[in-house]
């Protein structure tokens, strides 16, 4: 009896001692991007009691994979509403998987949007275009939320840049995204180049774009790729750069 009381007291004492340590360690884990998932009650309703329990007790990633595979199957059956729902669950369960966000955005902005544009069930073109635009926005939304959860990694910035470029023709925004990606560790070496290319297509940013392209050009032979040369020449013309400042004409 006395021993039970002593053990209980020791247990609580140990709890008290480790309380500040664990709080600070949890904080440190979070700032290193661990334990980012916020599993709410709405998720429990969606993935079921068992899946929720598994997710809470150390098998979050595994449950996320299962949901992801379900999403993949739904995509094969072109059930777009289900694809959206399942990807939302998968990304909630594992917000640190760049792959999930990227795939979710791609399915929405590229696949679902195109399917909507050709959807015979929709009454007219106007509605189809509206639906297409909605899916593109959903894709964009996935990428933006993905970036919020993974601000330390370049991949989703690159994907968002592609989306702005290909789906929304917003070259200025695409350029900003490429530039952000380029600043992060592990970025592809073409990110800086792509940022400059996109800027060169953005009306009103010609001067900026010219300077960026010229800087790259000056870095040396390895940056002087055909597209870069073409865009640089185009801007030299457009901005009326003095001849002696222009890059040499190889072909002519």
């Amino acid at each position: 009896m006395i021993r039970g009381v002593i053990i209980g007291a020791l247990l609580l004492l140990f709890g008290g001692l480790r309380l500040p340590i664990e709080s600070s360690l949890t904080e440190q884990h979070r700032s290193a991007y661990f334990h980012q998932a916020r599993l709410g009650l709405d998720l429990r309703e969606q993935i079921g009691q068992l899946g929720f329990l598994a997710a809470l007790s150390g098998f979050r990633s595994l449950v996320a994979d299962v949901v992801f595979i379900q999403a993949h199957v739904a995509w094969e059956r072109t059930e777009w509403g289900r694809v959206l729902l399942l990807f939302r669950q998968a990304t909630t369960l594992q917000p640190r998987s760049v792959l999930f966000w990227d795939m979710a955005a791609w399915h929405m902005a590229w696949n679902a949007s195109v399917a909507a544009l050709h959807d015979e069930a929709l009454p007219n073109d106007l509605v189809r275009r509206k639906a297409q635009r909605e899916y593109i926005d959903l894709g964009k939304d996935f990428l933006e939320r993905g970036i919020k959860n993974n601000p330390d990694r370049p991949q989703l910035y690159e994907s968002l840049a592609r989306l702005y470029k290909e789906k929304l023709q917003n070259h200025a925004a695409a350029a900003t995204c490429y530039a952000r990606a380029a600043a992060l560790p592990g970025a592809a070496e073409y990110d800086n180049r792509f940022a400059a290319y996109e800027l060169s297509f953005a009306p009103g940013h010609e001067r900026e774009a010219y300077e960026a392209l010229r800087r790259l050009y000056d870095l040396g032979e390895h940056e002087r790729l055909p597209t870069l040369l073409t865009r640089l020449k185009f801007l030299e013309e457009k901005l009326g750069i003095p001849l002696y400042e222009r890059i040499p004409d190889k072909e002519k």
Partner: protein
Amino acid sequence: MAELQHRSFSLGRIAALTGNTFTELVRLKVFYFLLIFALLLIGNSLFMARLSFQQEFQVLKDVSLGAMSIFTSLLAIVATAQLLPRDLEDRTIYTILAKPVPRYEYLIGKLAGVLLLLGLSILAMSALFLALLFVREQMLMSETLRETAGLRPEQVQAAIRSLEESAFNANLLPGIVIIYLKAALLAALTLFISTFASSNIFTIVVMVFIYFIGHLQATAREYWLQEHGGGWLAKTFLALVALAFPDLQLFNLVDDIVAGTAIPPGLFAQTAVLGCVYTSVYLFFAWVSFHGKAL
């Protein structure tokens, strides 16, 4: 013989107890059942997803590490829970403790035997897992090289880099160490519970309960400390959960490591030390409960 000064701590005695506990556990049917199940799962993870290679590797890693985690946790609980009751039932504990063996050495030996078993199991599983990862990577590598033949060298480089990044990731190793430490913590806690439990079923049920609550401990702790209002009853309940249960969520790092999150060495060291502290403290509690127990 009796003239010899009795040593109050002997690694030789602990080694004998450890070896014996290990031999005892290796004979458990549940050990093989769980091990085969885990190995099958790891082996099968290769065929689970027929998607992109990034996805394939993610599933392979999640399934394998999930199998390792569930195997080590379950084995830690189930194996440890029956050690003391069995020795008591068979009266072997009398013959051991009637020798010049301090009770703490007996407990250390028992725990060390479990930890040895868990360590060797996780090594075996890791070996299979890493071998699979390597083989699959090599297969995909030659495929990629074939597909990218004719492309510019930097594009080939990029393709290979992306493949390598999604296959083996050095952060997996600290992640596996943390899985092991979580199991060690659970084993020590099970040993502690079993010093006063009435049966091994009781111990296992209590431990399963602790396992689930332990994963919610951090949430309870945060609610308690954040002054969210609520009545004193709710507050007391949250405080009890936070103080009495271990924070198991801190030892779940592989999920995010598989997703590509890197663990800084300092953070890994701190988490590992916390795991060791938990294990030692629970072992100490087991001794407090056991040292004066009438057998």
